[in-house]
């Protein structure tokens, strides 16, 4: 007779030997480094060009993001329509994204169409003209989008908490206003493009089912471009955190929920506490079974979800707790967050809970390493953060070996209510 009360035996995932698939590294004729992961069964490929052209490099707000966005909006010989039609005709996706340090141009395509679309990527990087009318449409539509977003309490909360942590002048803390869009000039985009794209510093990441001549194909298209001729140094920015710690904002008098953000500054990945903090974060609010979820959602029903995480920044990070809670239970929610912090400081995490989180995290890593795009994403993080694959194996080791005492010490060091910014936006 089957005993349903008893769990089937399991293998502790901490005993699994996790391997990060190696990324092949090669260099194009112009000195651009390429990291390549050849994996997967589907005939698909991703090519990402990472430029050091994020908003840290701009002198005026949103120049970096606008330049990046408008890479697809016109070249000497192609209109925005023609560019879009070209990629779409081959079922390919060309996306661009602007971050704090970097800005990217990313292609996803069926491998069989790669040779058709690669040359057009080159065209965008060398011959973009940033047409005035395209810029006007972009400004108008972005301003409209912003007007809608400013009605959302979560959008407001995300902007403000970063401002408190880093200051409005810092790349991690600044945000966009309607006036910023009005002030953008075409000439500024062209200057930024010339400096940070055409003659910029670039790294390539490719993954998927790679054709055997991938190195040659990339070299033919990108290897002759004037990238990496001179090292571009990142300007230094100093955070100017806000003095005041607690904020209550009413954005919509009729709002039925409040967006709560509780955050403190935290060092970057190179700090010795970072990996251990990831484990503590998981226990605290990093997954569905975390203490914050168990208490505030699954026991009290104050929210649909509550999460904590370490911000994914290169220079410095922050430890963030984020939730949308019923308007009348915002205060009790915040109290419970601090209560959970206190508990981690005062009471040792028991072995059962710690084992569960270890197994969950290793299982999650195993799943995360499944597929070429996931593997290259990990490599990209390491390369951009100036880390090596040793970081991966150290992380795994930390998950397996960190002790309850070490986690308690960490909680004592970082979970002090007075160090946290606290914001509620209704």
């Amino acid at each position: 007779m089957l005993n349903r009360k008893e769990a089937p035996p399991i293998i502790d995932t901490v005993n699994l030997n996790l391997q990060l698939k190696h990324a092949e590294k090669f260099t194009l004729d112009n000195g651009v480094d390429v990291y390549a992961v050849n994996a997967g069964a589907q005939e698909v490929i991703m090519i990402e060009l990472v430029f050091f052209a994020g908003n840290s490099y701009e002198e005026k707000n949103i120049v970096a993001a606008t330049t990046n966005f408008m890479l697809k909006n016109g070249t000497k010989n192609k209109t925005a329509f023609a560019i879009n039609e070209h990629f779409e005709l081959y079922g390919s996706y060309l996306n661009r994204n602007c971050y704090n340090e970097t800005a990217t141009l990313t292609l996803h395509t069926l491998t069989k169409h790669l040779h058709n679309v690669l040359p057009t990527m080159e065209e965008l990087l060398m011959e973009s003209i940033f047409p005035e009318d395209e810029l006007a449409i972009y400004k108008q539509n972005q301003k409209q989008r912003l007007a809608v977003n400013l009605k959302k309490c979560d959008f407001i909360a995300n902007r403000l908490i970063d401002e408190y942590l880093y200051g409005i002048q810092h790349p991690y803390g600044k945000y966009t206003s309607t006036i910023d869009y009005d002030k953008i000039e075409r000439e500024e985009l062209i200057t930024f493009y010339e400096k940070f794209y055409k003659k910029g510093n670039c790294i390539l990441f490719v993954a998927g089912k790679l054709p055997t001549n991938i190195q040659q194909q990339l070299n033919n298209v990108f290897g002759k471009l004037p990238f990496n001729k001179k090292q571009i140094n990142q300007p230094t920015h100093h955070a100017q955190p806000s003095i005041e710690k607690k904020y209550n904002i009413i954005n919509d008098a009729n709002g039925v929920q409040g967006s709560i953000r509780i955050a403190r500054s935290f060092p970057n990945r190179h700090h010795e506490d970072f990996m251990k903090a990831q484990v503590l974060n998981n226990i605290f609010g990093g997954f569905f079974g975390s203490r914050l979820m168990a208490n505030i959602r699954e026991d009290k029903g104050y929210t649909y979800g509550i999460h904590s995480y370490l911000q994914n920044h290169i220079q410095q990070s922050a430890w963030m707790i984020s939730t949308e809670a019923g308007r009348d239970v915002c205060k009790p929610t915040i109290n419970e967050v601090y209560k959970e912090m206190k508990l981690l400081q005062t009471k040792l995490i028991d072995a059962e809970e710690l084992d569960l989180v270890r197994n969950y995290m290793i299982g999650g890593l195993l799943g995360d390493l499944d597929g070429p795009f996931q593997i290259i994403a990990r490599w990209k993080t390491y390369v951009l953060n100036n880390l090596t694959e040793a970081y991966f194996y150290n992380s795994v080791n930390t998950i397996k070996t960190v002790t309850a005492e070490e986690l308690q010490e960490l909680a004592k060091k970082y979970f002090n209510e007075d160090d946290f910014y606290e914001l509620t936006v209704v």
Partner: protein
Amino acid sequence: MIEYNRFILENGLRVLVHEDNSTPMAVVNIMYNVGARDEMPDKTGFAHLFEHLMFGGSINIPEYDEPLQRAGGDNNAYTTNDITNYYCTLPAENIETAFWLESDRMLSLAFSEKSLDVQRKVVCEEFKEHYINKPYGDVWHKMRALAYKVHPYKWMTIGKELSHIENATIEEVKAFFAKHYCPANAILVVAGKVKTEDIKNLAEKWFGVIPSGIKYNRNIPKEPQQTEARFLEVKANVPLDAIIKTWHIDARLQKGYYVADIITEILGGGGSSRLFQSLVKEQKIFSNLDCYHFGTIEEGLLTIEGKLVKGIKMEDAEKAINNELQKFIDEPATETELTKAKNKTESVIAFEDMSVMSRAGSLALYELLGDANLINTELSKYNSITVEDVKEYSKKIFNTTNSNTIHYYSNN
């Protein structure tokens, strides 16, 4: 070609196994043949609320998540108007944990009052977060009610109103479980680093003894053919005027569905699509514009929606959309436009199939639709569509008597 093996347990549970040794993981996916369309009009949102309760402990296992997490696994679930789907991924070595957990909650839930009480609140917060506390958050509540007069697609999965969720009782939860959550109404798909023989044994061991239950025969009133254009005006605290328009299209397995899918690609599928190029870029009438459909199993809606550029009048925006649609009928899609839509479809399928979890979910849905092998024949259906098909079907659906329109005004 996605290979799979299929067998049926004596109690009627359908099992599909998709072996893929390139991953170290296994996926266990259970799809129940019940969605928001199976709810009563005065108790909407129930299928989704019930999905939450499936995590509140089962008859022999007090906690669903904990043992799964301990086995290195993770899980989630979703409810649509058509179906409810539960899936977990875990290291393949620990797959039996998923069988143990999933079979126990198919056998019986714990039906805890505490869990119901908490999840009512959680779902109410979910409702508020997505549909009340967001600009334009109510637009689909209103559009569904406008476009469907009879069919239960007239309410959203989250429910028609908060009170329906707040009033749910434990007796209703028990009755819903008995009616829908049984082997006769479920499909189990196991995928990843597994062997069919092992899965047969595990399925037999854990699910084989669960009573079959009564096969649910859906008896949903058909939506009568719409015979005149419907309009609704809304004024709300939003910054921009918006238009949302829908037209009834064919059910999931009918040819018209595939043609409609291609039409949404041509009209709104990207930066070179017709509506975007004409109405956003050239005429500058909308600041954003989307054309899509929800992929429902029964007769669905093709949608065009957009926000108006400040200063543009609603009538002019309405006219501009209608002109484009008339043009689409008069000067039908070109071969290039059609090729573009087909290539994109091929590409979407290839990217989706990269994930073993996505393959498992698709197999379950196609099995539910009547034939799991549809997963391998879908692309050829799209590829057989001609310019003529697109022209004819556009003419048929883009008929004013088949249209529903909301003019959503900003009162700021």
